[in-house]
């Protein structure tokens, strides 16, 4: 896979914006949850924004993304509207899924976002079917499936890799190894190196610093090239870290700590993907403080507007459940 391509300044600024939007949207959702404003729970990907941003920068609406219970970042990076995300999580009719899915199920098929998934690992077979559709379409489109280190222990990963390798499906596996599955440190429930599991299928593997958005972007550039040219699947293992709780306010139910405050603090301080990119841009004199602040502000405004949009939204009609269950038509 070619590796020399790296994002130019304007691409870097786009990545920065995407990460800011994810960050602000999720901080908002965290606050909302704490305030008792959300109908359901949320799993935030704060600290992991670089993976979503770097991967999805290379995708178009024709490409599909299949996501996880921690899927806000994937949704936003893939072009989903912040207002549709927020309204959805607020349980409003104006949400991307008309308030039917919520955080666990955000989807916008018009943008190729084929759904977050509440069943850990289940996005993998769904994505395999989407990649088969890409393959049959034969138009250079591809599918990306995001999944966690914990999800890697679902057997469907092996099953899917076998399909993708055999049929040379245009499918990118992105394992977001954030070092925990719920309250279990990865190594306590996961043997070996996750991405090694792809090697038995002769699937090319890349391991990348998932907090370095430029590195993710660069790795993805090569992977997307490979996949779009019909050479079959690629597996990227992105090392990152979940700074926030598994779900918000988990301490209300989880009494024994599964990691130290210091560890989290250190990651927050030293490995924030937004800070890392901004510092690099400044060090390299590619962007000054003002430029970054403007992007920050734009993102904040976008999220504020999204929140206003969500707040102004209406609860769906009572009887929509059965209405949306079936389409009732035939071809």
């Amino acid at each position: 896979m070619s590796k020399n391509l790296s994002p130019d300044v304007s691409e870097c600024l786009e990545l920065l914006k995407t990460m800011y939007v994810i960050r602000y949207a999720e901080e908002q959702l965290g606050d909302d949850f704490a305030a008792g404003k959300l109908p359901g729970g949320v799993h935030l990907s704060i600290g992991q924004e670089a993976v979503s941003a770097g991967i999805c920068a290379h995708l178009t609406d024709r490409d599909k993304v299949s996501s996880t219970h921690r899927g806000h970042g994937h949704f936003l990076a893939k072009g989903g509207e912040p207002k549709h995300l927020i309204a959805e999580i607020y349980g409003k009719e104006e949400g991307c899924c008309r308030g039917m899915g919520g955080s666990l199920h955000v989807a916008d098929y018009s943008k190729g976002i084929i759904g977050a998934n509440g069943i850990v690992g289940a996005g993998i077979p769904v994505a395999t079917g989407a990649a088969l559709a890409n393959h049959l379409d034969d138009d250079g489109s591809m599918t990306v499936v995001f999944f966690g280190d914990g999800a890697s222990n679902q057997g469907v990963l092996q099953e899917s890799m076998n399909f993708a390798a055999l049929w040379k499906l245009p499918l990118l596996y992105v394992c977001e190894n954030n070092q925990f599955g719920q309250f279990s440190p990865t190594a306590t429930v996961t043997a070996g190196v996750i991405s090694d599991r792809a090697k038995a299928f002769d699937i090319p593997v890349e391991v990348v610093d998932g907090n370095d958005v430029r590195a993710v972007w660069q790795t993805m550039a090569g992977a997307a090239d490979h996949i779009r040219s019909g050479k079959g699947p690629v597996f990227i293992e992105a090392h990152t870290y979940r700074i926030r709780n598994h779900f918000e306010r988990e301490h209300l139910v989880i009494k024994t700590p599964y990691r130290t405050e210091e560890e989290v603090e250190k990651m927050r301080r030293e490995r924030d993907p937004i800070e890392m990119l901004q510092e690099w841009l400044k060090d390299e004199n590619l962007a000054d403080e003002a430029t970054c602040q403007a992007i920050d502000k734009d993102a904040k405004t976008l999220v504020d507007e999204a929140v206003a949009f969500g707040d102004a939204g209406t609860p769906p009609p009572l009887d929509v459940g059965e209405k949306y269950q079936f389409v009732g038509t035939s071809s």
Partner: protein
Amino acid sequence: MARTRFIQAINDAIREEMERDEKVFVFGEDVEASIFGDTAGLAERFGKRRVRNTPISENTLTGMTVGAAACGYRPVLHIMFANFLFTGMDGVANQLAKARLMSGGQIELPATIIASYGGGRANAAQHSDTPYSAFMNLGGVHLVVPSNPADAKGLLKSAIRSNDPVLFFEPGGRGGEMGDVPDEEYLTPIGKAAVVRQGGDLTLISMGSTMRMTIQAADQLAEQGLECEVVDVRTLAPLDEETICAAAERTGRVVIVDESRERASAASHIAAVVAEKSFGHMKAPIRRVTARNAGLPLAPASEQYLLPNVDKIVAAAVEISENGRLPA
């Protein structure tokens, strides 16, 4: 009309729909070789792009069905034995049955899954379940259970054209059975039961694999002076409550025959619907003839003991007939 084998009717339905719409493709384990014959010849006709032999990975097969359907194709998954639906259950119960609802109606899910079900052939417990009842409770999938070649063809064509997911339950081991199938193109509507016989004394309601014995029982009862109305339910979800209740009400005496196990069976459900909606017309207990609540043994007589049969249907009918016994 042409006399056609059950399996051939299924095969014809798939072939016709693949001709009609190039988005239809078939996949599953050995769909090329086709153990049951229902997908035989399709690979030769449509090529390996649209007829895809797969690895043995049921969880991924059902999940892929969702992904391919949500992305513009019309997958037909052949899962072989219906027990293997349990092996790939997440894709059906948590994904296929829910993806449209969860998306707020953004997508259509034109997916069909074909599964061969039922016992009575010494296939032992893991190859002989009748699991449609469990799937009835999922809420998000249509279920069709044909009892004859004509309905099999018509229902499968409707299933493949449906923009909603349909599980097509094929009565196992009936592939060789013949039936008249119309020469011209036709569809059998999903959600419509059929009254296949008139009779004023008693209503027999059944579906799929137990229809034949139900009709035999009706014949036997007729010889003995009890005329039965017989309903072939054909679709378990959505359920044609109107036709079922009307038929139940016409006689006030109902026996429901179903190969699945007794507890939370299709038969139990139909009985509940009749007991709720047609109560005032009922003249006798609503009887169910189902499999007993156990797995099926290999040993043929022990297996048969657990399954519905003509004698059990006749006995149930007689029990609730006007005099509580056979007319002399």
